[in-house]
């Protein structure tokens, strides 16, 4: 299990290959990558603030829970902070398991918790100036299924 919190961009393909290369006994690998949306060119950048220290604690705890609940071969979380440009990757989750059901469930679980329980705050910088992204009710709702 590996957790990286960084300002620098990362390469989705290189990270996916690194993750897969280290696996033994896995039959299923799921990745999720979040990208800065370019709403028809309206959104030019994003700024992500985070709470250093708590970020690592919160995500580490979520990853431990995922490992306890599903038969995972491995898991990876990368999350960026700072200034991001449109279409850049914001974050990535990868999970590996013998069977696909475990890999999918763990990836969705990690995403649902990262959305609402990891201390990151997104500010969109669009044509109308900057604005903090509001938490969505459906993201809070999504936690209830676990």
């Amino acid at each position, binding site marked *: 299990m590996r957790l990286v919190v960084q300002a620098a961009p990362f390469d989705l393909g290189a990270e996916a290959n690194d993750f897969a290369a280290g696996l033994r006994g896995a039959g299923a690998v799921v990745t999720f990558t979040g990208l800065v949306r370019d709403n028809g060119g309206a959104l030019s950048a994003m700024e992500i603030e985070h*709470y250093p220290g708590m970020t690592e604690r919160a995500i580490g705890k979520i990853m431990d829970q995922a490992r306890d609940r599903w038969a995972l071969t491995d898991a990876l979380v990368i999350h960026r902070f700072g200034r991001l440009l449109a279409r850049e990757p914001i974050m990535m989750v990868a999970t590996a398991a013998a069977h696909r059901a475990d890999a999918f469930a763990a990836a969705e679980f990690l995403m649902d918790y990262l959305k609402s329980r990891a201390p990151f705050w997104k500010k969109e910088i669009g044509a109308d100036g900057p604005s903090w992204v509001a938490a969505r009710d459906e993201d809070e709702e999504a936690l209830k299924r676990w």
Partner: protein
Amino acid sequence: MIDVLYFAWVRERIGLPRERIETSAPTVRDLIAELTAREERYELAFADLESLRVALDQELSSFDAPLAGVREVAFFPPMTGG
């Protein structure tokens, strides 16, 4: 003395990311009352507790949690990671 941290629009409204505060407030809610009594910018930041979250020593907590032994209090809006 307690470290108080602010993030996102809470930080912007209060105008600083962190400060050390001398307080004997027994709970988070009491600390908020102390701060809002001080200056308007705190009143503005803490106007709607429904839209705020609090972490005590980097663990999500509740506004009624006791502050005894706590070194770091953080206030912020609901998280929007992922």
